[in-house]
């Protein structure tokens, strides 16, 4: 008997934590798909390391979301027993790995944002979120350095790597706008000093991107049409497949201890 989805009382704080937890888990899961299949052993190691950091962040955020909700949910119920419409992650992080360029461009776009975001969140009035931010910021800084170095290598490597990196940038660009969008609920948390306004980070994020992309002799798209929906549970078709794999054990063997 498959297990029914859990219900989550998405108060502003619970929803806030879930959104960031889902970002970290889904991206960590995607990166973990590379383990054993990367272009070189050093990247099997590095991508796994980044995945581990992100899964660690997800666990802390889910645990906090469960605590803030105050019911009997926990990190595993939140991760394994919500369906695609209940997931709140950015569309960017659920995009398939594609080739190595696509994985690294996705990571670059996200880490350039996460690094700024978590650094700013260290001043949150919510001491748990501030503590999670302090840890995540250190990790994101390393993730950004790793991704930036690869963007430069690929952009300034061979004709093929340049073309693949540019194609990945062009493909993923439309998923970046969502990182800076804020809904009304989150606006209230921003006013309360619990969250920060991501829109204030966009200028610096673009500067980071321009510097790296410029050094790599790549270009950022002019197109400013942006896909939205992940934060409200309107995902790409890719997420359902990811979840069916991620959740298969908990759905097949309900209520067991692992």
């Amino acid at each position, binding site marked *: 008997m498959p297990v029914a989805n859990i219900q989550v009382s998405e108060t502003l704080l619970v929803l806030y934590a879930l959104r960031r937890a889902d970002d970290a*888990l889904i991206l960590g*899961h995607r990166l*973990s*798909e590379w*383990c*054993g*299949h*990367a*272009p*070189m*052993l*050093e*990247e*099997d*190691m590095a991508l*796994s*390391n980044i*995945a*581990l950091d992100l*899964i*660690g962040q*997800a*666990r802390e955020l*889910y645990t906090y979301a469960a605590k803030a909700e105050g019911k009997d949910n926990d*990190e*595993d119920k939140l*991760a*394994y027993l919500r369906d695609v419409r209940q997931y709140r992650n950015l569309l960017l992080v659920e995009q398939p790995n594609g*080739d*190595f360029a696509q994985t690294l461009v996705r990571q670059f776009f996200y880490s350039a944002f996460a690094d700024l975001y978590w650094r700013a969140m260290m001043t949150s009035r919510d001491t748990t979120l501030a503590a999670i931010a302090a840890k995540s910021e250190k990790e994101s800084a390393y993730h950004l350095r790793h991704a930036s170095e690869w963007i*430069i*290598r*690929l952009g*300034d*490597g*061979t004709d*093929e*790597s340049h073309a*693949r990196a540019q194609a990945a940038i062009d493909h993923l660009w439309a998923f970046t706008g969502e990182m800076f969008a804020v809904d009304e609920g989150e606006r209230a948390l921003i006013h309360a000093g619990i969250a920060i306004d991501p829109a204030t980070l966009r200028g610096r994020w673009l500067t980071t991107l321009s510097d790296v992309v410029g050094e790599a002799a790549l270009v950022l798209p002019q197109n400013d049409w942006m896909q939205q929906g992940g934060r409200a549970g309107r995902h790409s078709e890719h997420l359902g497949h990811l979840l069916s*794999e*991620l959740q*298969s*054990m*908990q759905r097949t*063997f309900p209520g*067991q*201890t*692992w």
Partner: protein
Amino acid sequence: MYTQALNTAEADDRGLEDAARAAQFQVRIDAEERIEPNDWMPAAYRKTLTRQISQHAHSEIVGMLPEGNWITRAPTLRRKAALLAKVQDECGHGLYLYAAAETLGSSREELVDAMLAGKAKYSSIFNYPTLTWADIGTIGWLVDGAAIMNQIPLCRCSYGPYARAMIRVCKEESFHQRQGYEIMLTLCRGSDEQKATAQDALNRWWWPVLMMFGPPDATSQHSDTSTRWKIKRFSNDELRQKFVDATVPQAQYLGLTIPDPGMTQDADGHWRYSEIDWTEFKQVLAGNGPCNRDRMAARRKAHAEGAWVREAAAAYAAKRAQRQTAQAAE
């Protein structure tokens, strides 16, 4: 290039191996001295070690695949993180071992190419499939347990870089073994269904794990010289017996049955196992195990699809070096 510039001058291998040098080498071995990369060594010693260390490295890398098969499906976030970290450790062991093999004068590329071409072997155990989550517990418990049994004596291997690599690898393997056993313990204390998967996994893995120690002593090809050179300290059968003796009580504690109805404990406490089906072992070594083709295909695919990335990294490094040279000249 990954090869280190060590003094493995061809001169050594060009037939200057006179009896006096070989005798002196054996004196050092007998005195338990460590042989280091720049020391003189018989060509056959170099060849044997290159084969053994690179096979060990290939095993770590191919070994990532059966366990990696469950990273995306691990049942909890804690298990997912632990498994990912474990498989990452195996990759680290592979890197470390390739580096140890390189000190003998072969590059990582050459060694990897030999594996991908099917000319170099890896441990036969990784040609079996991981069908259920219990297989992940069983691999940690038994496969890593057997690996530790094999590798602890290698910490005293006469070749310094290999011995030192093994010290670190054994520490991590020991952690993996306990982690695997803890997965088994959780399953065996869980539902009937969970316990049944644990027993099923043990049934499937037991005999292949015993084969990990290699052919029986009477037919082992490499043992004599390896023992004389103190690369190998215990025979295949000795290690296999040690493993069985250590594992039977662990299975009993889990409440699982070793799939060997003929197993008996003799008067001095050793558990005597039944005849191993060496035909199966030979078939798996010959490429006919359940997953040989899949494992090779996965490694070849990763290598082929990653070629453009490695080329890009090399091209970028060359450009950067050129720019730095040009800048320095200005």
